């Protein structure tokens, strides 16, 4: 499965690169300045404050994600939605959300958020036991609401700036700091899983872990309603970038 994915990545990347080449060798007609240009409207306050020096790269990634969604991700998600009944999907979502509680837990501790740490620990214990390994979420019905913390937020409380806007492959809109946060959280998870080695006795632990990672990705995509270019709006990239930044504004610093 993994090798297949890598192969697809390379093929898609190559295809995107080649289409880029094919399109760039046309047109030599002289350009004529338009009737209106942005300089006329420089007296207004700008709306976007997102630092986006890698826009060209980001737009390439944005396009790649669209193609990846279209040819790989969404067909798999559609298949998943067709094959599995609704309660299984909820169970899968709960299961992975429960595993992510660990991430929230150590990050709230790193940020010295006492109450959040306790709620998260309580949730994790309750859902892992009464909730049968996290398949159910009884903790929410006790009034313990799910918290969201990750290393990106930890870096933020430590005073690290967000850094430039960055569109990640498959994962989508992000920032440089968020990407480092993801890397750290990913490394922690990898370290934990390999020290416990829960599937060690099966003799196929790496395959099982790979399958679990894929299932988690499918679950996340299944719960995300956003579809690239669905708005058909020519400036969608900028709208998404703006909304991404605003949403971060809303959910942080509360």
């Amino acid at each position, binding site marked *: 499965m993994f090798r297949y994915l890598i192969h697809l990545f390379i093929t898609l990347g190559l295809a995107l690169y080649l289409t880029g080449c094919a399109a*760039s060798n046309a047109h030599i*007609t002289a*350009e*004529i300045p338009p009737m*209106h*240009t942005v300089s006329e*409207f420089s007296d207004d306050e700008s709306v976007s404050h997102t630092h986006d020096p890698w826009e060209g790269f980001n737009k390439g990634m944005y396009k790649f994600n669209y193609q990846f969604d279209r040819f790989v991700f969404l067909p798999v998600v559609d298949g998943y939605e067709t094959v599995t009944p609704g309660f299984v999907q909820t169970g899968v979502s709960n299961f992975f959300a429960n595993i992510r509680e660990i991430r929230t837990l150590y990050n709230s501790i790193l940020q010295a958020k006492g109450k959040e740490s306790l709620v998260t620990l309580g949730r994790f214990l309750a859902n892992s036991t009464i909730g049968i390994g996290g398949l159910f979420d009884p903790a929410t019905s006790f009034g313990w609401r799910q918290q969201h913390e990750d290393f990106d937020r930890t870096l933020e409380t430590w005073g690290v700036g967000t850094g430039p806007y960055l569109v990640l492959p498959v994962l989508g809109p992000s920032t440089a700091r968020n990407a480092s946060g993801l890397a750290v959280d990913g490394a922690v998870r990898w370290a934990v899983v390999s020290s416990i080695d829960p599937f060690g006795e099966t003799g196929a632990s790496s395959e099982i872990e790979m399958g679990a990672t894929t299932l988690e990705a499918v679950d996340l995509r299944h719960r995300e309603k956003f579809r690239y270019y669905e708005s058909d709006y020519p400036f969608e990239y900028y709208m998404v970038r703006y909304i991404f930044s605003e949403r971060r*504004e809303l959910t942080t610093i509360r």
Partner: protein
Amino acid sequence: MKIARDILIIFLLLMPAFAWADDAVYRYPIDDSYGATILGTPQNLRPELSGKAPVKTMILETDQKKPEIFFYDRGLRYTVAFQDRKAPLIFLIAGTGSGSKSPKVLALMENLYHAGFHVIALPSPTFPNFIIDASTSHVPGNLSEDAVDLYRVMEKIRDQFKGRIEVSHFLLAGYSLGGTEAAFVAKLDEERKVFDFSKVLMLNPAVSLYNSVSRIEGLLDGIPGGPRRVGAFFNRVMDKSTNFYRKGAFVGVDDDFLFAAYQAQLLDRDEAGGIIAVSFRISSAGMIFASDVMTNGGYVVPRNKVLKNSDSLEDYFWTTLHLSFLDYFNEYFVPYFQSRRPGLSREELIEALSLKSIEGYLASSAKIGVITNEDDFILAPGELDYLRRVFGPRLKVYPRGGHLGNLEYRDNMAFLIDRLRSATW
């Protein structure tokens, strides 16, 4: 005594029925026309529907050669919800800048599907996808030309589904600009008779495209610094909303949040109007840009420039956001049609983009009806009276609801469906 009491109880039970029938106690709750337009109808006042309609997105492939930056556009996207038995089929036309999956279209689809119709929804001719794929001129806004494009699309879609669904007869409805367009499509259908629509419904239509657009653009005159300061205005409103959100215990930016903000009078009337105009600007920015690229018009993009996917469009975004629909009309639209028809005056064109240009047909055609609101601000002074004069009993006016705010309100939806089902008005 017992009989008297029973009669009293029956009378009490009947009371709400009497009350509902009377416009004086129309219970759509939002008095302010801008508030209604922004908020729409609270969830608990919408019709209760059992289950979801099987809405599917379809693509009508076109052979238009597309510029590279529109690589994602694979054909005209429309939505359908079909019954599994013989049923009347209604075409819906979306309002300015909207696609066939906009919330209002989906709301109409759900309700009409549950009322037993096959439903096919089309994007507005001002929607970039339509401009790129289905518009012959790629210059939207000319009502009779847009009607021809819409009609062609409807025929193609009907051909796609021939033999797969059973249709008893055809109907047509549109809201906002889509309502005005529905009238022009209906007139075209009288000549071509492909669908022979049995009923045509215009929901909160514009009477004159030019007047309505002027009125919406005019809402920006009330913001500090006027239309040239839309960016500063937008930032201020966003800051207010963000602060309000942070102070309250909201779970997300949803209806609850919006209603709470409304009740707290977060925005004054000028600001509410400004936000409506800004959202209109956001739509028109996409429309202007798509049209300019498709025609190589040299309006905001240099003529002959071939845009690549990696090119930044941010400056074009900012420029088009600051151009009003009236700039587009005067500097781009009028010259384009004058170049095709020398001697055509600006005034003649404005006249042509109005229901007045097909008034004779509208007055005499018994199948066309209009539903609108007393406080719909896209109508210029006198235009409501004009509708009354032309449509007479085929016009229904609700006392409030702004521009389409009450579309999803129970009474409105029930009335609308009842009109579509009945043989006469």
